[in-house]
Each structure stands twice: as structure tokens, then as C-alpha cells.
């Protein structure tokens, strides 16, 4: 009778255990497409069996174990961070590249070419009123092209500032959600697979904006460290980040009126901008504080667009003021063609214009010499198109080449970003596939697999090196076009 009773108990226990296994399996199936959900496993524990003392054996359900692999999860999030960064780079740089049209049909290159042509026409007919007026008109067009390019770049900077603010808000919002999840976990819901899925889905979202690491606590809650060092979440306490704009105090700014950089501040006010390099936020900061600053200027640089505007204006003015409008007597000296805001070197492109009240007959065509040349100044101005004199160049490049270099910088950065985007898109898929591969494997199998992988990796890396070298050699032997 005792044995029969024991058997019934044992069977009932097994039924309960298998019922839970079935429930877990159903839950797995139901959540197959839930973002962040990973397969749960119901462990089974054998019960002691000793009929002599009434232990009837059997099986009981143990803890539900998640197949989640923290290492693989972090690898997927890291890949996602790099993807978010590459995507944002491509978006930002596409906008920047559109500002620099190098076709010569619009913008600064066209205005420059037109101005040089007008100098050339004026040199051929130095007294022609129409040629003189054309020079003034083309000079006005060039000034406007600089203003317009500056304005487009400033718009990009403002957009980047807005996007940085929005990204910071999104990061704080997502961390706020995770804080709520932590509170639930700490209250005892650590085995809730649905909650686990929500946590990891939120972490996945967060990873496209910033780089962070997670540290799981013994109570099941997670701590979040941005860039591996700045606490965003510890237990149920959130530490918000913020964005601000101000000129750095040290070293003292050489250009205090330049557009200030954007800073990211930790909750205690610590500046964490330099360590914020990953994800969309890192990309936006780099674009605003480095790339756009190189054109528009910043605390320690004038900005290449301002350098170019100033060099052109100064050189043209220098040639004209060294010439004469008439040879008199007494001779009348030339006057500057361009003017700009001299109080702020980072505002030159924005303020460049034809000098107020300038008329065509004030253009100085005569080079006083000796010997005096009646169209000497006009000829010197037209020679700016193909300069020989170092003073007619910027850093060794003609004005047109210098602009080409500015455009090439944007184009090259965009090309690199597109290449990175292509790599990172595959890398996210790769990390997700590796995450699947590395879940639930035995140590022995894994050790063997790793050795095989290392061999396969080395073989392929060698082949790639050979291909790379062969391709480079071939490029080198091809005649230049």
C-alpha cells in the first residue's frame, strides 16, 4: 500500500514538473518573435529515492534558466553601437557633402571662376564701364556664395545641436525605463521572462545611441555605465546626462566669439564629452565639434571657410590698393573691393561683402610700376586663377584647389563612413549569429570549435593579405590616367 501511495506521489510530482516544462516551451514559442526574448529552459531535478524510509524518487521542476549569454548580448550591443555611429555619420556627412558642390556649376567654385573671368575681361578693356561693373557684380556673387555656404554649414551645426539634445533626452528616457525594470526585478520578479525580454530590448535600443556596459547584480538588477565609466543607472537610482554649450576655459580660447562646442555632462556636472565617442551621440559630437568646427571655426581655429574668405579678400584688396585708379596728377590710389567683420576672425565668411559705396570707376586697373602699366593690376588679379606667386595661394594651393580640398575632406569622410556602415551592418548580423551559436554549448565542444576557428581565421587572413597586396601591386603598375 505504501509503495502504491509513493508511486502516486512520484507520478504527480513528475506530472507537475512536465506541466511546467510544457508551459516554458509554450512561452518560448509564443515569444519567438518578441524583441529581446531568449529561450528559457526548465531544469528538472531528481528527487531522492529510498523506499525504506519513504522516499519515492521521481522528478521535480527546478529553476527556469535563461539561455541568455551576457557576453554575446554585450557583443551584439557593441556591434549595434558601432552601427548607430556609422549610420549617423553617413546621415550627417551626406548633408555636409551637399554643401560642397565641386562641379563648378554653383556655389563658391562657380563664383570664383566667374570673378577670375571678369578680371580677365576687365584687363583686356580696363576703361570699359561694363567690364568694371561686371567685376563688381561677380565680386558680390562670390561674397554671397561665401555667406550662403557659411549659412548652410551653420544650419548643419544647429541641426546637430538639436539632434544631440534629442539624443540625450532619449538616452535619459530609456535609462528611466530600465530603472523601472530594475525596481521590478529588485521586488522579486527576476525570473519573469517577459520582463527580461523588455530589459534586453531596451538595452538594445539604448546601444544605438551610446556605448555602455552592463553589470548584473546578485539581486538580478543591472547597473549601466556609459563609456564604461559614467554611471547611468545603479539599482533603482538613475543618473541623468545633459548637453550644454560653452567655450572651454583652458586653454584660453584664441577665438572666443566662435561657435562653442557641445559638451555632454554627467549628473554631477563632470564633462564626459571626450569619452563619449560611440553610437549616434558620439557621432553627432564628432560631427559638430570636430568636422563642422574645421570649416566654421572654434575656440582654437579660425575655420577653413573663414581662412579662404579672408585670404581672397585680403589679396584682392592688397592688389587693388597698391594700384591706381588714375595716374593724375596727382595719382589716385585704389580702394579695397571687399570688406568683412574684422572684429571676429570666425565671422569672415558670413560677413564678406563688396565694400559699401564701391563703384566700377573706383577699381584701380593701373599698376604704378615703374614702369607703369595701365592694366597691370587687372592682369595681376586675373592671374589669381592660375597662381605662381606663393602670396596668391593658400597653404600652397590655388583658391580653387583649396576649396577642392575642403570638399574632398567631406567627400572622403563620407566615403569612409559608407564603408564602415557596410561593415557594421554585416557585423550586427554576425554578432547576432554568433550569439545564437554560443548559446548552450558544452565547454568541450566550444574549446574544439575555438581551435578550429583560429585556424580558419588565420588561413583566411593570410589569403586576404595576398589579395590586398596583389591588388595594390596591380594598381601601382597601371599607367596613371
Amino acid at each position: 500500500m505504501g509503495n502504491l501511495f509513493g508511486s502516486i506521489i512520484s507520478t504527480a510530482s513528475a506530472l507537475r514538473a512536465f506541466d511546467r516544462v510544457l508551459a516554458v516551451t509554450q512561452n518560448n514559442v509564443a515569444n519567438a518573435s518578441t524583441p529581446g526574448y531568449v529561450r528559457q529552459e526548465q531544469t528538472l531535478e531528481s528527487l531522492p529515492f529510498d523506499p525504506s524510509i519513504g522516499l519515492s524518487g521521481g522528478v521535480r521542476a527546478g529553476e527556469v534558466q535563461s539561455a541568455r549569454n551576457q557576453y554575446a548580448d554585450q557583443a551584439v550591443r557593441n556591434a549595434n553601437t558601432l552601427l548607430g555611429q556609422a549610420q549617423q555619420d553617413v546621415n550627417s556627412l551626406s548633408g555636409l557633402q551637399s554643401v560642397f558642390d565641386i562641379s563648378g556649376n554653383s556655389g563658391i567654385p562657380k563664383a570664383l571662376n566667374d570673378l577670375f573671368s571678369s578680371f580677365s575681361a576687365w584687363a583686356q578693356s580696363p576703361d570699359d564701364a561694363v567690364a568694371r561693373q561686371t567685376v563688381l557684380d561677380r565680386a558680390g556673387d562670390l561674397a554671397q556664395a561665401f555667406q550662403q555656404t557659411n549659412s548652410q554649414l551653420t544650419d548643419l551645426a544647429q541641426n546637430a545641436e538639436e539632434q544631440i539634445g534629442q539624443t540625450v533626452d532619449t538616452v535619459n528616457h530609456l535609462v528611466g525605463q530600465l530603472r523601472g525594470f530594475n525596481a521590478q526585478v529588485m521586488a522579486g520578479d527576476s525570473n519573469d521572462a517577459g520582463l527580461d525580454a523588455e530589459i534586453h530590448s531596451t538595452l538594445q535600443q539604448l546601444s544605438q545611441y551610446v556605448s555602455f556596459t552592463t553589470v548584473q547584480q546578485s539581486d538580478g538588477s543591472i547597473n549601466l555605465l556609459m563609456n564604461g565609466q559614467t554611471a547611468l543607472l545603479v539599482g533603482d537610482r538613475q543618473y541623468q546626462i545633459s548637453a550644454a554649450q560653452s567655450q572651454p576655459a583652458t586653454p584660453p580660447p584664441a577665438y572666443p566669439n566662435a561657435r562653442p562646442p557641445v559638451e555632454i555632462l554627467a549628473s554631477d556636472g563632470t564633462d564626459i564629452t571626450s569619452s563619449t565617442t560611440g553610437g549616434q551621440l558620439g557621432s553627432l559630437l564628432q560631427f559638430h565639434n570636430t568636422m563642422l568646427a574645421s570649416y566654421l571655426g572654434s575656440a582654437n581655429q579660425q575655420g577653413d571657410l573663414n581662412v579662404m574668405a579672408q585670404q581672397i579678400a585680403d589679396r584682392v584688396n592688397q592688389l587693388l590698393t597698391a594700384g591706381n585708379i588714375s595716374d593724375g596728377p596727382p595719382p589716385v590710389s585704389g580702394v579695397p573691393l571687399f570688406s568683412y567683420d574684422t572684429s571676429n576672425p570666425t565671422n569672415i565668411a558670413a560677413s564678406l561683402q563688396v565694400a559699401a559705396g564701391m563703384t566700377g570707376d573706383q577699381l584701380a586697373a593701373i599698376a604704378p610700376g615703374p614702369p607703369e602699366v595701365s592694366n597691370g593690376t587687372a592682369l595681376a588679379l586675373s592671374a589669381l586663377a592660375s597662381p605662381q606667386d606663393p602670396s596668391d595661394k593658400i597653404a600652397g594651393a590655388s583658391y580653387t584647389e583649396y576649396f577642392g580640398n575642403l570638399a574632398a575632406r567631406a567627400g572622403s569622410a563620407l566615403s569612409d563612413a559608407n564603408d564602415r556602415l557596410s561593415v557594421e551592418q554585416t557585423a550586427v548580423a554576425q554578432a547576432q549569429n554568433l550569439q545564437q551559436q554560443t548559446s548552450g554549448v558544452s565547454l568541450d565542444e566550444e574549446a574544439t570549435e575555438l581551435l578550429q576557428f583560429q585556424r580558419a581565421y588565420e588561413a583566411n587572413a593570410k589569403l586576404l593579405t595576398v589579395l590586398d597586396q596583389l591588388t595594390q601591386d596591380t594598381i601601382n603598375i597601371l599607367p596613371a590616367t
Partner: protein
Amino acid sequence: MAGESGTGGLGEARAGVERFCLVLSTPSPAVLEGAAVLIEAAIAEVAAWRKRRAAWLEEAARAAQAGPMEQDLMELRRIRRAAGRARKLLEKAAAYHAGWSAYLGTRAAGYQPSGEAAALPRPRRVLAEG
């Protein structure tokens, strides 16, 4: 013109490297070992193109009208870019596995006195003879 100069072969080489990049999205040892042939084929294509091109240019008349090389250069640069992508993906996969190995090492055997992860235990086999 492009066919004569062998650009078609370069296109196939590039396609091979790009297929290799796709394969790298699931970089298991078996897949990787199988995929090495794609790179080998690409190397062979570039080498063959190089020979064809050299022979083609040897004829003085053709060399004079060899004309624009932009298409060939562009294709070669694309191959280099694709190879660069493949290298980065291969490095990422290798870094993942190295990290995974260290992770398993710490889980299985903790840390070495130097602070590095313990080596992952290797599977052992017993051979009985006689």
C-alpha cells in the same frame, strides 16, 4: 574595350570577395574553411587579369591607345575596399571568439595569477592500445 582589357575578370573577383563578406555573417569554422576558396578564386582572377593586361599592353599600337584606365582602376579599388571590409569582419569574428574564449575560461577556471583569464580547458582523449 573593357572586355579586351579584362575588366570582366575583375568584376568576378570583386563579386567573390563580396560573397566572402556575406559568408562572414555566420563565421563558424566549417563555413570559414569552405569560404577560403572564394578568396583564392579572387586572387587567381586578379593575377590572371594582370597577365592578360600585360600581354595586351605589350603590343605597341594598343599601348598607345590603351586609353582611359578609370574603369579598371575603379574596379581594383572596389576589390580593395571589399577586401578591407572582409578583413574587418574577419577581425571582428576573431575578436569575438577570443573574448568568448576568455569568458569561458573565467567561467570554467577563473583567473590566472597575472589577472588574465584562465585558459579554456582543452578536451582530452584517452588512447588504449594492446
